[in-house]
């Protein structure tokens, strides 16, 4: 009745950082079993000194049977002895102060209560040491598992936010009517636009750089609204053009949007590969979402070309519209991707990691790559505007 309670108490939950202290040596039995006749006065003195501090608890030997025989006449002493043994066996690696206090209280409880049925208490406590060990290891396992689960959760969160940056996507969709109109005009007539640099958003409290401004506040910020709407419009217009030629099938929708998405993905991969080969760190401040947005602005020109071809104005006008939209889009991309590939000007977005060490050859290569990206718009736009 009392011994299970005592056994549940004697491996206290404070002992569970056991394996983290391997520096404490396991308790040494102070006397051999051959000297077991002298163990009774020793344990008496040990018990007395144990009341002061719990250090001499470790002096109890693992020779409990002989001590049991010797100390059977003493009232309650075997209980104390097995208590000592249990402490010595369970808390072999424990920090001594903690286990000393806890074991001291448990010993005082067992000394008063479980005296007469000492052998039974000995047996049950001998078994009780094993649930004590299992409890400690189970707690340690639970703690380890919890930390592992937390680490896995953090890993998933970090990678999910890295590969699918939801706040960035939400920022890219925060547009206004005036922004959309101005941005469309900028994409189609980018020649006279003057400040091409994006504005940074300052942190409220310390004035540090806190990312780029949202598109609703900055005309130069890339958004995803116009590319998405232009993509859908292109798909519907391609289907309409097929319908006007009375060649419409329902597969036309899937084909046109698949080829459009293929173009977007290919260009995105090309730009990412170029950034890797040209050693542009982290896209130079632009994420993949913004690269997708920049790649999607070509659909505005494609839509204009398709509309010009729908109006049946002749192939010369159609080609002129295509050429003009290509030039405008290429110029727009040259100006906009410049801060991605050439972050060398001392902009407020302090990307100092890659900015200062840009040699002449590297800069020339980046300019060539930027020019190649801008010129390759002709290929994509020509392929997509043939509906």
């Amino acid at each position, binding site marked *: 009745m009392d011994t299970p309670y005592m056994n549940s108490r004697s491996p206290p939950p404070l002992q569970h950082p056991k394996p983290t202290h391997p520096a404490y040596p396991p308790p040494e039995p102070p006397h051999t079993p051959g000297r077991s006749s002298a163990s009774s006065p020793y344990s008496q003195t040990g018990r007395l000194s144990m009341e002061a501090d719990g250090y001499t608890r470790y002096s109890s030997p693992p020779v409990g049977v002989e001590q049991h025989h010797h100390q059977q006449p003493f009232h309650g002493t075997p209980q104390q002895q097995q208590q000592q043994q249990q402490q010595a066996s369970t808390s072999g690696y424990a920090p001594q102060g903690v286990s000393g206090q806890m074991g001291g209280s448990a010993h005082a409880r067992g000394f008063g209560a479980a005296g007469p049925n000492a052998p039974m208490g000995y047996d049950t406590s001998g078994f009780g040491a094993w649930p004590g060990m299992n409890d400690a290891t189970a707690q340690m396992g639970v703690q380890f598992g919890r930390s592992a689960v937390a680490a896995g959760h953090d890993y998933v969160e970090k990678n999910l936010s890295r590969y699918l940056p939801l706040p960035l996507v939400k920022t890219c969709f925060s547009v206004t009517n005036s922004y959309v109109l101005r941005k469309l005009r900028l994409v189609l007539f980018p020649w006279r636009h003057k400040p091409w640099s994006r504005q940074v958003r300052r942190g409220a409290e310390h004035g540090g750089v806190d990312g780029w401004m949202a598109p609703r506040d900055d005309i130069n910020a890339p958004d995803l609204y116009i590319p998405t709407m232009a993509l859908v419009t292109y798909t519907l217009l391609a289907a309409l053009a097929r319908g006007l030629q009375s060649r419409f099938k329902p597969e036309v929708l899937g084909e046109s949007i*698949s080829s459009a998405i293929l173009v977007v993905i290919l260009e995105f991969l090309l730009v990412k590969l170029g950034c890797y080969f040209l*050693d542009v*760190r982290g896209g130079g401040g632009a994420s993949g979402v913004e690269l997708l947005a920049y790649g999607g602005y070509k659909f505005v020109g494609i839509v204009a070309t398709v509309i010009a071809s729908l109006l049946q104005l002749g192939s010369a006008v159609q080609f002129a519209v295509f050429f003009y939209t290509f030039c405008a889009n290429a110029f727009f991309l040259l100006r906009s991707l410049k801060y991605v590939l050439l972050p060398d000007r001392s902009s407020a977005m302090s990307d100092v990691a890659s900015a200062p060490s840009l040699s002449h050859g590297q800069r020339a290569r980046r300019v060539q790559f930027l020019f190649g990206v801008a010129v390759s718009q002709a290929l994509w736009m020509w392929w997509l505007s043939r509906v």
Partner: protein
Amino acid sequence: MFYLGHIFYVALLFTNAIAILSEDRFLARIGWSSRGTPATNSGFGNDPSYDAAYGGGEGVSMKTKAINLIGAVRTLMRLPLIVANVVVIFYEILLG
């Protein structure tokens, strides 16, 4: 024309093509082996030239970057490629 499934097939085949490049028989013969380069063979960052090569950003040529990319694809995409190939093969057998 193209569909999204075809885009996936094209990406899968290209990744297969990168991952299937033999280290001994092909890449070492054209001098693109990742074993000869000390910066890529250093393991987990115990070579100080690793940090010098990747922290400075100047001394890494495009060839080294391409070798690193091939090695990364071969190492990282092995298991996903096995799974994706098995899935696509069964899909094509059953429904194609």
